[in-house]
């Protein structure tokens, strides 16, 4: 394999991995607070259509990313209000949010699918990325670097900050956290809103980073891959980074293998497509066998907070 091809593959993998990485980091924080939001796919679609429309009308990509984040927050608040304020079932509410996001984005995007926008350009000046080797480091748009920074930020927040400690306490044992005076619901609201913002930005990656257009259901199930990824990474940000790139590699290598016509193209497309999910189940089993890691799953995940009166 030539260096050029290797570099090209890396660049494509980075692109494919970025939205699932961002969405999964948001969901990781949500789950660490003890909430399971299965509406990621729906919030991503809302982010995608918002980012597309803002770019289409203003041409300002950074504004588009901000508005997509805000739209993600707004949609996550539907989920938050129902599950946190009204203690509705999280699984059902998350699924309803995905149905809503799919329908709403399609409705909002009617008539815009034949309209092109432009991709968000590279963050650094082109001279820095002129050599192929430097392209691997400096050739991406801001969204890619944002995703990297987010990994470090989420890690620092959860491990090192006081607020992160409280968030984890709320996810591990909501009743204890409540009894020592923390607002369980308040913390979870913040986490859910953060997850919504990240899902919105992840959705914005589709028209701004991957394919500059709007198409209904253009996220193609990657919100569910993000949910899988959080579990795959056993709720650890750096493992999540590695997992996102592994999933991105699997999704992308399929296409490179087929385009090359080489021996790898003999693997059925369906097996490639099933691989992220199979890998997640396998990893779930592995971390459960190694007891130490399994404790990393938030104890309160998916359960409503119902303090005794």
């Amino acid at each position, binding site marked *: 394999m030539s260096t050029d091809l290797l570099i090209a593959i890396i660049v494509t993998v980075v692109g494919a991995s970025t939205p699932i990485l961002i969405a999964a980091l948001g969901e990781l924080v949500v789950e660490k607070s003890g909430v399971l939001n299965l509406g990621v796919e729906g919030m991503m679609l809302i982010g995608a259509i918002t980012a597309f429309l803002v770019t289409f009308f203003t041409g300002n990509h950074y504004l588009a990313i901000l508005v997509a984040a805000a739209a993600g927050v707004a949609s996550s608040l539907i989920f938050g209000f129902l599950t946190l304020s009204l203690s509705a079932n999280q699984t059902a509410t998350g699924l309803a949010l995905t149905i*809503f996001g799919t329908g709403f984005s399609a409705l909002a995007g009617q008539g815009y699918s034949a309209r092109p926008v432009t991709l968000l350009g590279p963050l650094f000046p082109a001279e820095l990325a002129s050599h192929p080797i430097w392209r691997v480091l400096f050739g991406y748009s801001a969204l890619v670097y944002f995703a990297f920074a987010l990994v470090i930020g989420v890690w620092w927040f959860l491990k090192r900050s006081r607020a992160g400690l409280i968030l984890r306490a709320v996810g591990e044992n909501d009743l204890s956290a409540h009894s020592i005076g923390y607002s369980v619901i308040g913390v979870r609201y913040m986490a859910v809103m953060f997850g919504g913002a990240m899902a919105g930005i992840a959705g914005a990656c589709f028209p701004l980073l991957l394919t500059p257009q709007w198409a209904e259901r253009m996220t193609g199930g990657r919100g569910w891959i993000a949910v899988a990824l959080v579990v795959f990474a056993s709720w650890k940000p750096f493992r999540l980074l590695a997992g996102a790139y592994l999933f991105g590699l699997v999704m992308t290598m399929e296409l490179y293998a087929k385009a090359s016509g080489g021996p790898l193209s003999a693997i059925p497309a*369906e097996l490639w497509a099933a691989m992220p999910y199979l890998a997640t*189940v396998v990893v779930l089993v592995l971390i459960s066998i190694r007891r130490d890691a399994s404790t990393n799953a938030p104890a309160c995940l998916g359960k409503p907070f119902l303090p005794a009166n």
Partner: protein
Amino acid sequence: MMQFRLEKRREPSKAMLYGTPIVAVLLTMIVGAILFSLIGFDGVGAVREIFITPFTNTYKWQDLGVKAAPLIIIGVGLSIAYRANVWNIGAEGQYVVGGLAATGVALATYQMTGWWILPLMILAGMAGGALYGAIPALLRTRLGVNEILTSLMLTYVSVQAIYYLVRAPWKDPMGMGFPQTRRFAADALLPNILPGTIVHAGVPIAIIVALVAWFVMSRSVFGYQMRVVGAAPHAARYGGFSENRTIWLAFLVSGALAGLAGALEVSGPFQRMVPGFPTNYGFTAIIVAFLGRLDPLGVIFGGLVIAVTFVGGEIAQTSIGLSNSATGVFQAMMLFFLLAGDLLVRYRIRRVTPQAEARA
């Protein structure tokens, strides 16, 4: 944040239990009409076409029955599992594997005739669904792996299995190369029960499943165990009910019912396996189970309501040109209202001010 306080009811409110789904549907109609009018659609027309027109002729009643049947069968299984606090959200995968198992039987017996073929397909479908449901059950009971995540992941794997099978080993030799199996032989097809209609045997089966499940859940030790383990796991342990046993039962029952629905769908409306077989019945049935308040009889209601929105959504497309995505928005809205109303069943809301009035 609003200053409300939740006060747990001693008994779930019966009035709220049965009242809130109806209120949710009514609210959806009203808010939907207003919202859609505000964004420039014919809001009142949309509500009329989606919620009222499906009831106006007998053809549509048949459609409702046929559409609701698989939702009810899967929803009943899920309501039993959820009652036991076992979160099987992979019913779609179990439905798919059930359909594949039945298809396997139909293709293997393609050259044969006999009354036994269809029952065998149905049994294979139930076994397939139960086996696929056994994977998350095994992982949960043996290794403590979260069943929500495993059952969800396995759904996506099962869909790829269909794509592979209909594209390669099971492809119809006469199908012009299209990815689908052959059309099943006559003895592998689910019969219509009313001549001249489209109502197939799956419709009465769905009603029977719901009635049997209701009877079992409310009258038998099994049902008691499921409910107690779900409601009070600690008490159940002292009472000698094994939590692992409950998880197994919940997954096997809900998996087998999802598999049954898969077998009925593939032998009835589909009549062959196609890539479009996964129609989200398994996910929609989660909504149905909640609409039905996790009660097998309520699930019949829930299945019908959801069927109305599907059938009505298509009518709205043909009659007033309302787009398909609008139906999704209506469904989500209804579910949001319903989930919000859930609270009122278990809790009273008291405003935290002196001399608060109990609002319920």
